[in-house]
């Protein structure tokens, strides 16, 4: 039996290669994700280990407001400089150094633009001398107030040289300040940066003022242990001396913690990639199911013969499953290998993008290997089970009869399909209506999966009318008509092939519906709400939003024709212990006119230094009313008590809480992020815009745009997201294309004699190819049509569920849907090429003459 299986496997290698390829691609995605995240994780480990290698013990303030990797960089309040001396006194401490080290030092390159970062921080630091690790490559240390040194990678990116004047924006000063570049440094091992981090070193007082906002404070204190004192002992001693308000860690711990927080982000990323891998594998499952079904159908006679000469049904199942295991194993190995390659490539690209992250060696984590084999084998075997079962039911008599597999009725499959679709719908409803009891995401995903499988099961039934309708387009020509008839010939096969394409297209369509609706709803709301003709803002590239000099706000206000100006600040704060997003407005009184804020209680037109405003939703959920007092802890400074003095009506664009602008200095980013300018009636936008532009000459991160351009820019991040999702889902579509090729190739093989007959009675080669192409196009357009319909349904359901979150308009991307259908037609044509060529090459004689 084993030999027979092996032989038949080899005999059908081409068919199996195609379906195996689907598994290879899916497995590649899985192992690639693991290899990528593992490699990056270890690279981060080594970067941080290096960066903190010279620190024995590190002292920092406890973060006052915890933010996670998704919400932004963790910023901690500074320490008083006096603490350095206290640390020095601790027995076992050889030395203690106050360090300024904060994100937000942005160098302006020789092209006048800020050197951006896609992830690593842009650190502003105080110069504390060279070390084993850090060595000046050129020039000298900064000595005067207007002197800086920067790392080599940054100097290269900014195209600046020692001796030149260099503009820098800092955390507390978004107005360009000129410094003289007096030195350039690098790291041991000839590295120009550590992990792509851009660094600017100032003299200590300048660093304190510009990066921390006040004199005589430090970000942290690094302590060197005296000879013979272990890091751990020193840490414990320092911690005991300083008390509970500080985080005292060994250098190793700091490195591990910093790396761990980045890895948290990585593992999230990994999960997303695995999600896409799951989609690809779902599509692959359809493909394999189809291939094995066709193979079993083609081998009916052979299998019946085996039964006739004494093989049991079990042995038949065994032989099919054995074949699946072989395919699964080979595909897993290839997929794993391809994934290692892809993971390495992506890690390399990521390293480049992140500004020269030195990659740790490419590693293959156990998870990648186990995941690859588990996924590859399980998927293949599960998909082959159904065909195997069918094979075992072939009666021995079939060996003697002509292979006329009668059309089995579709009743059972339709009932099953309705049931599964129903379950999917119920799960979706539960998940989307928030009744899934904490399992919202998995309930929704389960619902989507069930919906897909259910629709796939219903597809054979739907395929009959739809395919004949679609095919009618081609029926004017004989090959077109034949192709149409062929695609309607085996509804199950057509259905599974089309369903494979459906999955990818449905997801893309669904996501497009959701994002377009979100975009449309937000834009519409912004159009309605924002009564500012001009907006100052920048394009956010990295984790830190662009900021500008608050002085511009006053200067803009003074321009003729300008009526109101409001600068907006924002931060995560802890209010009564709970993380809350807070904003500050430079002119609270303008909120009514610019944002149409409507008071529901109290006074929202002014704000005293200890007063705050809340949105009606926030007030309701937190139980606040005018006069309530709350405890607010910002990123920096002490916790303070604020009194609610007014409540404004909630909308999608309102901030939960608005604080007086004086509080903004304690925000993690103490500079304005957006500025809104309302003009006097009758003033031309084009008259004012250039004047504001001129005011922003020293704030190169931002520009001034009219309102529509601003709204477009704000929602454009959704476009990027959409593109990314589409690229990732493209793999699922590629696999579906493989499925179409496979189905067609198998059909051509199956119909060799039929094709020969057609050629014998006068069908031209080109007509033969046309016939196959029509068959492919009909199948793929059918799949896309299903996908568009199912995707629209899913998207609309999600949009409906998000109504309360402000996605009020359901926007159907008709254009996109048309593109998908057109794309499907092209896919059909492309998928048909090889099978069509093969069909056209069929030897007329060989086709009709055999047995």
């Amino acid at each position, binding site marked *: 039996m084993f030999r027979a299986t092996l032989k038949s496997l080899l005999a059908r290698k081409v068919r199996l290669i195609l379906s195996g390829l689907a598994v290879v691609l899916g497995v590649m995605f899985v192992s690639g994700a693991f290899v990528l995240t593992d490699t990056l994780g270890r690279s981060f480990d080594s970067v941080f280990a290096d960066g903190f290698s010279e620190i024995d013990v590190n002292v920092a303030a406890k973060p006052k407001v915890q933010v996670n990797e998704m919400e932004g960089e963790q910023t901690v309040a500074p320490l008083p400089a006096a603490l350095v001396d206290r640390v020095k006194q601790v027995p076992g401490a050889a030395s203690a150094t106050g360090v300024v080290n904060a994100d937000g030092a942005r160098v302006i390159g020789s092209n006048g633009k800020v050197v951006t970062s896609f992830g690593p921080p842009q650190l502003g630091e105080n110069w504390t001398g060279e070390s084993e690790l850090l060595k000046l490559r050129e020039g000298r240390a900064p000595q005067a107030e207007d002197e800086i040194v920067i790392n080599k990678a940054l100097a290269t990116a900014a195209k600046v040289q020692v001796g030149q004047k260099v503009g820098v924006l800092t955390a507390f000063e978004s107005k360009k300040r000129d410094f003289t570049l007096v030195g350039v440094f690098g790291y041991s091992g000839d590295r120009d940066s550590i992990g792509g981090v851009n660094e600017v070193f100032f003299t200590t007082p300048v660093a304190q003022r510009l990066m921390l906002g006040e004199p005589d404070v430090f970000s942290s204190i690094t302590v060197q242990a005296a000879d013979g004192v272990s890091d751990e002992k020193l840490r414990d001693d320092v911690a005991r001396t300083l008390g509970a308000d500080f985080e005292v860690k060994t250098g190793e711990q700091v490195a591990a913690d910093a790396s761990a927080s980045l890895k948290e982000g990585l593992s999230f990323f990994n999960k997303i990639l695995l999600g896409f891998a799951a989609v690809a594998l779902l599509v692959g499952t359809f493909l394999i199911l189809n291939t094995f079904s066709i193979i079993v159908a083609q081998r009916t006679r052979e299998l019946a013969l085996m039964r006739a000469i004494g093989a049991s049904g079990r042995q038949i199942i065994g032989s099919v499953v054995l074949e699946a295991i072989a395919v699964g194993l080979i595909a897993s190995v290839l997929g794993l290998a391809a994934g290692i390659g892809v993971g390495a490539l992506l890690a390399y690209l990521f390293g480049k993008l992140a500004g020269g992250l030195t990659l740790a060696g490419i590693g293959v984590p156990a998870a990648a290997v186990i995941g690859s084999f588990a996924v590859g084998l399980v998927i293949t075997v599960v998909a082959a089970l159904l065909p195997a079962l069918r094979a075992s039911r072939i009666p021995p008599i079939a060996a003697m009869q002509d292979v006329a597999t009668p059309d089995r009725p579709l009743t059972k499959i339709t009932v099953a399909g309705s049931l599964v679709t129903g379950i999917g719908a119920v799960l979706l409803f539960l998940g989307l209506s928030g009744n899934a009891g904490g399992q919202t995401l998995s309930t929704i995903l389960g619902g989507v999966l069930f919906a897909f499988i259910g629709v796939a099961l219903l597809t054979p039934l739907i395929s009959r009318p739809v395919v004949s309708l679609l095919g009618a387009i081609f029926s004017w020509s004989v090959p077109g008509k034949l192709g149409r008839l062929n695609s309607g010939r085996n509804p199950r096969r057509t259905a599974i092939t089309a369903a494979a394409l459906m999955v990818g297209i449905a997801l893309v369509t669904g996501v497009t519906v959701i994002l377009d609706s979100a975009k449309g709803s937000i834009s519409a709301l912004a159009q309605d709400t924002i009564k500012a003709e001009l907006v100052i803002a920048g394009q956010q590239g990295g984790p830190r939003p662009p900021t500008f000099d608050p002085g511009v706000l006053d200067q803009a206000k003074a321009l003729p024709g300008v009526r109101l100006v409001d600068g907006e600040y924002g931060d995560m704060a802890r209010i009564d212990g709970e993380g809350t997003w807070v904003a500050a407005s430079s002119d609270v009184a303008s909120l009514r006119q610019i944002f149409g804020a409507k008071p529901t209680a109290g006074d929202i037109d002014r704000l005293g230094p200890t007063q705050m405003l809340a949105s009606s939703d926030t007030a309701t959920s937190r139980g606040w009313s005018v006069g309530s007092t709350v405890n607010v802890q910002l990123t920096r400074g002490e916790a303070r008590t604020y009194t609610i003095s007014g409540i404004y009506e909630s909308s999608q664009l309102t901030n939960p809480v608005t604080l007086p602008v004086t509080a903004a200095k304690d925000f993690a980013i103490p500079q304005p992020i957006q500025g809104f300018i309302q003009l006097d009636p009758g003033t031309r936008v084009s008259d004012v815009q250039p004047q504001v532009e001129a005011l922003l000459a020293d704030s190169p991160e931002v520009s001034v745009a009219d309102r529509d351009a601003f709204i477009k820019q704000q929602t454009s991040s959704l476009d990027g997201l959409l593109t990314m999702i589409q690229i990732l889902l493209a793999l699922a579509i590629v696999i579906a294309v493989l499925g179409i090729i496979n189905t067609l190739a198998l059909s051509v093989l199956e119909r060799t004699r039929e094709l020969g007959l057609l050629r014998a009675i006068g069908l*031209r080669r080109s007509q033969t190819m046309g016939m196959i192409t029509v068959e492919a196009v009909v199948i793929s357009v059918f799949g896309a049509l299903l996908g568009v319909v199912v995707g629209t349904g899913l998207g609309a359901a999600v949009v409906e569920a998000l109504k309360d979150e402000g996605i009020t308009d359901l926007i159907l991307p008709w254009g996109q849907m048309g593109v998908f259908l057109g794309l499907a037609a092209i896919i059909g044509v492309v998928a048909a090429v090889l099978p069509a060529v093969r069909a056209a090459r069929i030897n007329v004689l060989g086709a*009709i003459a055999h047995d």
Partner: protein
Amino acid sequence: MTATVGQQAQAAARANDVWKVYGSGEAQVVALRGVSAEFERGRFTAIMGPSGSGKSTLMHCLAGLDSVTRGTVSIGETTVTGLGDAGLTKLRRDKVGFIFQQFNLLPTLTAKENILLPLSIAGRKPDPAWYDTVIETVGLKDRLDHRPAQLSGGQQQRVACARALVSRPEVIFADEPTGNLDSRSGAEVLNFLRNSVREHGQTIVMVTHDPTAAAYADRVVFLADGEIVSELIEPTAETVLDTMKKLDTAAEVGN
């Protein structure tokens, strides 16, 4: 060998010193050894011979389905030898009809669609009177909307005959058209073929190894070992059988 009745240069199909060699070296098989024959217009010719004698090969070469190793083949005015795929396709469309032993019909099409398929492929309209005549003769009027799977073997073969006839080809080639049928259905098909020759002047060349089937023809050409060895005009089942027997003994003696 010279054809006895082939003097009018009216041959519908002609083979001239045709050789066909399959394979090479050890595995070389010479299927046809210098076959020359003419198949007159308006006649029903049977090609007889034992299994492996080269009947199918000869028919395939005559019909342009296979290339010849040496010699020439022509159909009507057209020299088949040397035609490319496009030329051969055109030839099959316009001048040749086929009836195979089995698998003659497209399962997706109805009987009527199958019958009209060669014309639709060529983008031609059937001559309505002729179409009616053909349908009438085949006796399938009430089965036209059925698919092949719903027809008996004999009916399917009659549909195949009608398909071959409806485009009025120069010549119809039939390879063991009754090989898969019981004797009654076989007789129906053969009667039908003979009638189409007698009444409508169709030219038919039929390959068979069944003496009863060969007796329906006007003329029988006997092949043995790739050579034409004998010929009968106005055969009967008995004369055909006799000739076959003689050939068999001759072959055994030869061995």
